[in-house]
């Protein structure tokens, strides 16, 4: 660029303010300024990369910790269901059979394989290698088919969680014995069992079919999943109608006065109240004042419904707002009453937006833990709940409880439960997005 003629910039006292042309002045600063520009862009990219990497780190950590949980180490034991132990009185009544001692046959079965182990403590260590669940399996089999008494059958039973961890390589044999949960002798015995070919690794169906248990190898998420289902059901049934009705009123009929403004401010604030405060509300009002059952999905669903209500109302209002006034005017012009306009015309058109908001609200509620801790859904519940009034727990609380447990085997199960929870959330959110894309209209 050639130097251009400089327009005279005389100061108030007539002196020229600059001796260089502005062009040259600007040129000198350019390199510094462009460097600053590049740095700024780099910061932006770095920030985004940081966030995305953290997300990736979270997912890979969970997945890598979870996949061992999908297999369980089992053992094929030949158990003689001896009549002396099970049915000494030869009555064969169900009552007698259900109360019999089934540990004895299982102990015999394992001791058979190690005739060289005789000392009492060693024998106990040997038996500890089998999961307590083995006893239940044999018991169930005999109760279902009493003709098993006196026979010798092969049962495939789970091994204890410590042995399971050993098999998955999670226990370091090089550590001194006092720092591990598995003793040297047990490691040796396990190798011998493997040598015999009776140790199997199977898909861990227990994880998906059983309720909670103290023993990791017997613990499953089914109880929590059913509990979550009932809780979500209650939440949906309560929050959806109330939310939509409230949104319709506030958006279509409410006069603009102080009361409705107060309601709006209220709703916006409620959406930002910490979830634990709702738990306190549930505890004080529902459990203590109304005396509703603790740990029941009904109460949990009620608390979550109050939390989800603002989300649904806000989403529904914006969906209603997006329906153009021309539709309402056309319907009213044909003689429809205001409520008919809403129910016949506006609501169906706004429904995709409302449903999307509801699904997203439900997804948020599904992952909530803190308020449910307050109302007692944190108890150790073994049975699968049969309805919304039975004590239950929910999936996120189950995750929390397992995360607290000391057994190593619970780490992988917690991660697996997290994966299940996240899959539900992914399905719900993807469903919401698809719904929005499919039915969205651009007015």
């Amino acid at each position, binding site marked *: 660029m050639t130097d251009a003629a400089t327009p005279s910039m005389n100061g108030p006292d007539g002196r020229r303010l600059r001796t260089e042309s502005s062009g040259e002045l*600007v040129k000198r600063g350019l390199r510094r*300024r*462009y460097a*600053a*520009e590049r*740095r700024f*862009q780099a910061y*932006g990219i*770095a*920030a*985004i990369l940081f*966030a*995305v990497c*953290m*997300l990736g780190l979270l997912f890979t*950590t*969970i997945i890598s910790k979870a996949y061992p949980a999908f297999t369980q180490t089992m053992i094929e034991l030949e158990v003689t269901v001896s009549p002396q132990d099970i049915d000494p009185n030869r009555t064969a009544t169900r009552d007698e059979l259900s109360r019999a001692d089934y540990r004895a046959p299982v102990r015999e079965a394992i001791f058979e394989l190690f005739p060289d182990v005789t000392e009492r403590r060693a024998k106990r260590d040997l038996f500890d290698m089998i999961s307590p669940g083995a006893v239940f399996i044999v018991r169930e089999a005999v109760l279902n088919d009493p003709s098993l008494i006196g026979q010798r059958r092969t049962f495939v039973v789970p091994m204890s969680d410590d042995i399971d961890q050993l098999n998955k390589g999670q226990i370091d044999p090089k550590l001194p014995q006092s720092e591990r949960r598995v003793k040297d002798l047990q490691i040796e015995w396990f190798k011998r069992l493997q040598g015999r070919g009776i140790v199997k690794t199977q898909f861990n169906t227990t994880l998906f079919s059983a309720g909670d248990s103290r023993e990791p190898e017997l613990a499953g998420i089914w109880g929590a999943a059913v509990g979550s289902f009932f809780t979500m059901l209650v939440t949906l049934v309560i929050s959806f109608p109330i939310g939509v*009705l409230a949104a319709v*009123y*506030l958006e279509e*009929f*409410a006069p603009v006065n102080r009361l409705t403004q*107060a*309601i709006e401010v209220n709703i*916006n*604030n*409620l959406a*930002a*109240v*910490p979830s*634990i405060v709702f738990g*306190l*509300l549930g505890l*004080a*009002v529902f459990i203590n004042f*109304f*005396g*509703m059952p603790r740990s029941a999905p009904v109460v949990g669903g009620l608390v979550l419904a*109050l939390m989800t*209500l603002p989300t649904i109302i806000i989403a529904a209002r914006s969906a209603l707002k997006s329906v153009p006034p021309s539709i309402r005017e056309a319907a009213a012009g044909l003689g429809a*009453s205001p*409520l008919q306009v809403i129910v016949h015309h506006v609501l169906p058109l706004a429904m995709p937006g409302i449903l999307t908001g509801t699904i997203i609200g439900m*997804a*948020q509620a*599904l*992952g909530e*833990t*803190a308020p449910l*801790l*307050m109302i007692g859904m*944190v108890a150790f519940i073994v049975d699968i709940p049969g309805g919304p*009034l039975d004590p239950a727990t929910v999936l*996120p609380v189950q*995750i*929390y409880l397992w*995360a*607290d447990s000391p057994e190593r085997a619970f780490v992988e199960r917690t*991660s697996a439960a*997290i994966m299940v929870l996240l899959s539900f959330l992914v399905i719900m*959110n993807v469903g919401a997005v698809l719904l929005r894309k499919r039915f969205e209209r651009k007015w």
Partner: protein
Amino acid sequence: MSYSLVLGVLAFLTVIGYMLGRSRSLTVAGGRSNNLHSLPSYYGMYIGMYCLIPAFVLLLAWAALETSVMDAMLIASLPADKAGLPQAELSLLMNDVKNLSRGDSTSRAVIEADIKEAAAYYAHLTQSSKMLLAALVAVLATGGIVIARARINPSLRARNSVERTAMILMIICSTIAILTTLGIILSLVFESLRFFQMVHPLDFLFGLEWSPQTALRKDQVGATGLFGAIPLLAGTMLISFIAMCVAAPVGLMAAIYMAEYAPPKVRNFVKPLLEILAGIPTVVYGFFAALTVAPYFRDWGLDLGLTISSESALAAGIVMGIMIIPFVSSLSDDVITAVPQSLREGSFGLGATKSETIKQVILPAALPGIVGSLLLAVSRAIGETMIVVMAAGLAANLTANPFEAVTTVTVQIVTLLVGDQEFDSAKTLAAFALGLVLFCVTLVLNIIALTIVNKYREEYD
């Protein structure tokens, strides 16, 4: 269980009422619906309304109050020595009675005679309550159908009636939000007042030591429990501060880049990814913090010769910061995009580079909105529970050192309430006092933030 049965019967009756209403309206109109004021379906709904609403209200009230009423009646039936027992033993007694009446096991080894009597009485009460409820509901429902049906004639403005009722229903639904807030405030204040009768408010708000282990025996009054909340507030502040140190720069720079620099493909890809961060349940973050991040920092500290606690504020704070990033970036993105294009053009026209325009024109213009988003993020951080429960400590510790373990207000609320406590001890009431403090602080932050953001939106509309 029988509640569902009653509900089912009520639903059935309502449907019958609807069908009756429709057919009746056509009958009185001589078979031609033109003679009717409203469509036949509205007459059906008219009867359905009269059937359903009174009975449903009764059902709700019954469900809400049944337990309290039955408890009162049970206590009244007990002999004087049992009825006069102190609260803890009385509720234990009532639990036993209820369990016994259901056929479950009790905590008593020997079951006294009057306990058995009380159990039988309770069982009788439960039974009669259910039968009474079913009877009343049936009477109300059918009564409603009969009354409404008698009113049906062609000039009855059924639609207006139905619509009026629907309007009232909608208004009630709208006020539930206010009722919720009222409920929160009342329950928190009420229980906190009871707490402040045991522990002086100034001791609570300004006390420097938190160790709520009150004695379990009744004769040791709460002098042994210290309820000074300062360490908790300090812990909350420390962790929130660390979280904001992560979330604010990352969120803001990400928002700036996505709003001003990123090509549409990148923006459409990255924005949902950041939203995912917000959708992950906090219990998952807590697990991640406790099992991956905290041990990592602890080991890293060992390598460097520092003692980093395995429940350090650093681990919890950083993971919380990651969770909050989308709160900052999403809102900031919106406010930055809302700055009018004319300002950008004015700046470019003067020969400014993009970063100069952003730093000197756009960010100052968007500042109120950005501040609002930061305040909302802080409010979220303060109220967060699960991450800190799983990754931060339980012992109150007044410190500014991020490598130490601290506890927060939310952790203490959970610890105090999870488990079997009687409802009146200072411990459980302290949780409500903490909840009140938490609610007030987040409410103030939210109000300020929302006011700023809304006022800012008005300016540029």
